[in-house]
């Protein structure tokens, strides 16, 4: 009797997780065009940057970070020193530290291995979708990790398949169509709805201006400077707003 009930509970838990995974898979579908275009552009860039097909596939599978790869490729082709290439990649990736901190509270209860796995598959797209869904209250109440795994699974598959297509068909993929802009537009669509509060709007504005002003900094530091400046601004604006008397714009 007890064993039976336990068995039933485990089965239904497994079913629930499967449902959450599927919902996550479905939630990312509209943004997959962005991920696909971005993956294909990365694939083409690797081959045009002088990598042979096996190396390009290896890079795509192991690194799985389009922006860091695109930042590193011209340096590799130019024969830059190793530390310069890796530092550039690292600083391009620094934003993931912020993402990782933002995701932490949602997954703090999971075992370390599960957290490491979710981290490995986290990208700009999957992170932005997760946070937007959290903001809009669209995350499932339970099994958020399964939901996020579903999001990441589809994003990863799409990105890798498109990168592979780009690698194999590099000479046939037109590079002058501006395909990669689809990725940027997908981010615009993901982030746009969060701009409704004043702190978010001011933070985004400052982030953009600082990133523009510092874009010439070495190692792609500009992106990180912009992000930090924006976050500080938004936090100050948030504190100022909460300190304002009631009747002011709600947070």
């Amino acid at each position, binding site marked *: 009797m007890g064993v039976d009930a336990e068995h039933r509970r485990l089965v239904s838990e497994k079913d629930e997780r499967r449902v959450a995974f599927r919902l996550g898979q479905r939630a990312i579908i509209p943004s997959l065009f962005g991920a696909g275009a971005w993956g294909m552009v990365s694939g083409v860039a690797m081959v045009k940057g002088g990598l042979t097909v096996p190396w390009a596939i290896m890079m795509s599978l192991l690194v799985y970070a389009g922006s*860091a790869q695109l930042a590193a490729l011209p340096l590799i082709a130019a024969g830059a020193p190793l530390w310069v290439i890796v530092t550039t*990649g690292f600083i391009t990736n620094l934003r993931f530290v912020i993402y990782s*901190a933002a995701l932490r509270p949602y997954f703090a209860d999971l075992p370390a291995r599960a957290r490491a796995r979710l981290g490995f598959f986290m990208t700009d797209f999957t992170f932005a979708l997760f946070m937007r869904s959290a903001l809009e209250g669209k995350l499932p109440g339970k099994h958020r990790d399964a939901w996020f795994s579903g999001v990441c699974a589809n994003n990863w598959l799409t990105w890798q398949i498109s990168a592979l297509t780009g690698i194999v068909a590099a000479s046939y993929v037109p590079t002058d169509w501006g395909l990669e802009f689809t990725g940027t537009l997908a981010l*615009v669509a993901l982030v746009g709805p969060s701009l409704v509060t004043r702190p978010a709007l001011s933070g985004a504005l400052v982030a953009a201006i600082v990133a523009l002003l510092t874009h010439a900094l070495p190692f792609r530091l500009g*992106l990180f400077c912009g992000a930090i400046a924006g*976050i500080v601004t938004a936090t100050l604006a948030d504190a100022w707003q909460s300190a304002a008397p009631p009747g002011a714009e709600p947070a």
Partner: protein
Amino acid sequence: MNDPVSGLVLAVVIVGLALSTFATRTSFLLAGARLRLRHRVEVALRYAPVCTLAAIIVPDILLHGPHGTLDLSPLNPRLIGALATGLWLCWSRHIFGCLAVGMAAYSLARVCL
């Protein structure tokens, strides 16, 4: 440009990039449970997505060419595409529609302007 890059250097570069990506992506997720963040930091992190993505998106729209020349002209095709996406976003939250409208506006602007 198109000479295959030497194997050993490339292997080190790929491993280095892979490690740096993994380390940054898992940093706080792994430091996880033991850490207790201050309230102020948690508020700050709520604004992380919008600020970081703004720092990625806006330069991509406004800077062009190898030296990143600022292009604030209203005829900038990327600006037109992004504005189209933004406008579409105001009355529909469907990402696919936003992408389609934005890419159509961008491509049209590139062909016509």
